[in-house]
């Protein structure tokens, strides 16, 4: 479980996060949604420690990440996996080496076991046979799957995904969403996904927080979202013609 308490963050005098409180549950896909520029990515970067909040608490199962020493942060980070918007694979090494990298750095397994574990992770994301390929030779969806395999190699307790469907077609997006959701429940991971893809919201949004202009405006689950009365949330969701029609149908 990850708990945020009154997170503030400013850049050059401009306040981007204005006191965000949130709770992200274990074994569930927790979504952060909001328009581009609403502060989603800044919030996630604060949670994973790429930025330090100006004030507030970030508790990982009760452990305050902000107050930790550098050494403690490094140890906690080994419990995290992250899937970036751009996949962020190391392009000079093969797919297998990418997945094996965290094992090379932080596990005491021997080489044969590390290879076996990396192959298992690739199998888990249905990428067997792509071991010797380089990231540049893969499609966007395959790169995301390699990123998921790399993120789960060390059995993380916390998984972070920054717009995992960005640049993917709807069918591949669905596959990636299902994969993240399955892995989350299978390994009981606390997963946080940044997205503005409404298909993801309606597909895997077990716990959702909506932020707008750096403030948390709404929280709930995918079943509550269509009936919400929050104006900002409604103008975000029903910007799409398809979802307007869905709402009308639901109300009828």
């Amino acid at each position, binding site marked *: 479980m990850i708990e945020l308490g009154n997170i503030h963050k400013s850049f050059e005098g401009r306040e981007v996060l204005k006191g965000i409180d949130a709770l992200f549950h274990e074994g569930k896909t927790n979504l952060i949604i909001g328009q581009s520029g609403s502060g989603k990515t800044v919030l996630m970067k604060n949670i*994973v420690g790429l930025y330090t909040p100006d004030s507030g608490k970030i508790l990982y199962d009760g452990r305050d990440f902000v107050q930790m020493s550098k050494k403690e942060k490094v140890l906690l980070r*080994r419990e995290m996996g992250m899937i970036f918007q751009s996949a962020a694979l190391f392009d000079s090494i093969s797919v297998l080496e990418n997945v094996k990298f965290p094992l090379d750095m932080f596990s005491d397994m021997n080489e044969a076991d590390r290879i076996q574990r990396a192959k298992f992770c690739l199998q888990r994301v249905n990428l067997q046979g792509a071991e010797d390929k380089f990231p540049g030779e893969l499609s966007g969806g395959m790169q995301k799957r390699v990123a998921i395999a790399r993120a789960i190699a060390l059995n993380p307790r916390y998984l972070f995904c920054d717009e995992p469907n960005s640049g993917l077609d709807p069918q591949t997006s669905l596959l990636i969403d299902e994969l993240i959701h399955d892995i989350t429940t299978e390994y009981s991971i606390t997963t946080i996904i940044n997205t503005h893809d409404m298909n993801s919201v309606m597909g895997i949004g077990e716990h959702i927080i909506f932020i707008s202009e750096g403030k948390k405006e709404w929280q709930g689950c995918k079943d509550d979202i269509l009936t919400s009365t929050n104006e900002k949330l409604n103008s975000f969701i029903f910007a799409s013609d398809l979802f307007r029609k869905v709402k009308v149908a639901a109300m009828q």
Partner: protein
Amino acid sequence: MFIIHGLTTFGRYLLLMGRVFSIPEKWRVYMKQYAKEMSQLGVDSIGIVLLISFFIGAVICIQIRLNIQSPWMPRFTTGYTTREIMLLEFSSSIMCLILSGKVGSNIASELGTMRVTQQIDALEIMGVNSASFLILPKIAGMVTMIPFLAIFSMASGFAGAYATSLFGIITADDLTVGLLHSFNQWYVWMSIIKSIFFAFIIASISSYYGYTVEGGSVEVGKASTNAVVYSSVNILFADIFLTSLLS
């Protein structure tokens, strides 16, 4: 304003170097990276070093032979002067200025691209000291390989000088006498010592500019340019200091 900017950059460079020089987390992975960097930055530069040194050695020999030709000059002067130029300046300073273009831009663009494609962020989130993991093997690899490159440069320069004898510009015997005349072994060591300092300058400054890129491809291009310019300027300043210290 310029001074404040310079001091700020220098301070950030020192802070980065503080992160770089830490004990590697996994020696096995570090040694693999170190071997890769020695190959990429050192072995892959042998060709250009040999080529440029060969032609510069030949050109120095021809220029000296043609420009200081006089009955009062001993015949070994050409070989002697060629040797002094190659050992004292070309094989260390000029060769490193050339390498700052090749290796410096390579390092800055590689790290800059890793930064803008979030590969460095991915390392940080895994709990890896990305500065040490990426930059330390580059500095170590470059410092290890540069003495060999300096020696190859000297040898290739002399080979170029000998090649001019094939065109009758100077006889091989006169050249040999000149190359051996009043030979001071310390000059070879001086060249190697200087090149080691220059290798550190190239690898660390280029890494700084690449690692600290913010933005996109335009900024990566700017970082590559800055890496080459600032490495070259620092090599020139360090050359004055080291030459006066070691001579």
